């Protein structure tokens, strides 16, 4: 069967154009109706609980514990207070930084994985996902051992005479960024790799035969063809970074204040669930706005690339 449909070496221009313009193929294999189960599931188990949560918070003014912020007051507080706006901006900027670093570091790794790893493919995939299989508590411990004042890195640097006084790695936002990139970069690498794998190598080869340098080939053929993978990685890492608090909590030493961190406090200490709910809705909406903006940019580039 597969042999019967062996693709032409170079896809037809017409089909590509149709796709880029969003017109879709003539005979789409999958009808749009297939999206229904997912949408229904999300409506029942995502939207409904959140609506239920808001409804409960409205009906329970002063319910849980003394006098929590009323639901409306919570939004007023969040949107009117420069402090919370600053935290929101910090959250988004922090996530963007983590995502950008993951992209720059992850692309070459994805490229290596698909093109050069050969029989070490599984091993590399394993190494990539290993951090995610390690308890966060232990991961944090690993960083501490490496980066503490009397830790490995400082000892080595001091033994080598590079520094005299131990560097204080563990306070400041650097270690929080590193800790988050460490666990999120696998998403970037695997997302890019899955789209790199789909590229027809012959396209790159023909470009080179026609005299394009390897750099030129990469930037004009390979990179544009993996934009969808980059998009996937970007979105996943950005959204994950936006919602994560455990790494920041354990590694950041509190040097960065983000909304998820404040939300966590509402659950563990102050029990102001209304404020927590409001914060998380504000976070969700701003993340979605960022996402739409990013997709726009990505799409425009994508069209230009082709």
């Amino acid at each position, binding site marked *: 069967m*597969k042999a019967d449909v062996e693709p032409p070496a170079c896809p*037809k221009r017409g089909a590509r154009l149709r*796709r880029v313009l969003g017109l*879709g*193929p*003539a*005979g*789409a*294999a999958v009808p*749009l109706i*297939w999206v229904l*189960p*997912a949408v229904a*599931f*999300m409506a029942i*188990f995502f939207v*409904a*609980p959140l609506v*239920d*949560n808001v409804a409960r918070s409205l009906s329970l003014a002063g319910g849980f514990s003394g006098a929590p912020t009323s639901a409306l007051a919570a939004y007023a507080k969040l949107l009117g207070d420069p402090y919370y706006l600053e935290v929101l901006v910090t959250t988004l900027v922090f996530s963007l930084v983590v995502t950008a670093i993951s992209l720059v*570091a992850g692309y*070459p*790794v994805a490229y*290596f994985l698909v093109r050069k790893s050969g029989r070490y*493919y*599984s091993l590399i995939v*394993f190494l990539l*996902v290993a*951090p*995610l*299989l390690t*308890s*966060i*508590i232990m*991961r944090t411990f*690993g*960083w501490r051992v*490496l980066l503490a004042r009397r830790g490995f890195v400082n000892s080595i640097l001091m033994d080598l005479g590079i520094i005299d006084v131990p560097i204080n790695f563990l306070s400041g936002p650097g270690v929080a960024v590193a800790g988050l990139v*460490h666990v999120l970069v696998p998403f970037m690498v*695997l*997302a890019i*790799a*899955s*789209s790199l*794998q*789909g*590229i027809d190598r012959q396209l790159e080869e023909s470009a080179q035969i026609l005299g394009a340098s390897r750099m030129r080939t990469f930037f004009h053929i390979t990179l544009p*063809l993996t934009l969808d993978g980059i*998009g996937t990685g970007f*979105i*996943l890492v950005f959204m994950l970074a*936006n*919602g994560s*608090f455990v790494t920041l909590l354990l590694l950041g030493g509190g040097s960065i204040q983000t*909304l998820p961190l404040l*939300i966590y406090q509402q659950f563990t200490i102050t029990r102001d669930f209304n404020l927590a709910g409001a914060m*998380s809705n504000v*976070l969700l909406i701003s993340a*979605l706005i960022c996402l*739409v903006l990013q997709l726009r940019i990505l799409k425009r580039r994508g069209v230009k690339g082709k």
Partner: protein
Amino acid sequence: MTRLLDLLRNPADLLLPAFVFLFFVFIIAPIAIVVWMAFSAQAYIGFPIPAYSLKWFYRIVEYEPFLNSLIVSIELAIASTIVAATIGVPAALALARSRAGFADGLATFLLSPISMPQIVLGFALLFYLSALGFGVSFTALLLGHTLCGIPYIVRTVLGVYRSQPADFEEAAAILGANRWQVFRYVTLPLVRPGIFAGGLFALLISMDNLPISFFFGSPDTNTLPVVLLSYTENQFDPSIAAVSTVQMLLALLALVVVDRVYGVKHMGAPS
């Protein structure tokens, strides 16, 4: 040998492997410390390690909650990934090439669960599902984890499917394949890398999930991250490192088996 000569002729070729090497030093260094710690003979977590022992691995077997919750976690990860894929893959395929104006909006909507701090989602789900009559149960856990898995599968499959031209399917249709045959023999193989990557993400995210599992634990359905967190509340011994090590070993084993049976590379590449 010829490869080596190639490298010498073109030193720029060394840049990529060198970068990848440094990247993996960064990835592995903290994890290596954890694995090393698992073999410590000391009764608390700390460096340097005075002597080595396997006793913490024995402790995993001996301390019932570790093993029980590990089993629950694995069952849950597999079950939720399967459900999420069953729901998510068709949705991604339908959305990827839809010309409907709302398709992009819908795709973004399906991603939204991951941008929300899961503690909020877990809390809301607990009250909601409790009102429906199954608050603290394996079913509730399964629903929560499935919800978190769907975005990964949708997004990766969507990304991969979009980067494939429609020509293959058109050609198959022209050659006389019916809709089902096109789907089974052309579309599915095309998006296999996406399903593999997305499924892997969903599995890992489920195994690592604390904020949702946390709200749904019962004596019989507690997951490993919840048990580990609670364990450290009063104790800080290398058994936590040993559990992480075993988890990694299991993952390695799974990858090797998948590789032997299907070939991971093969799973990852459309053939």
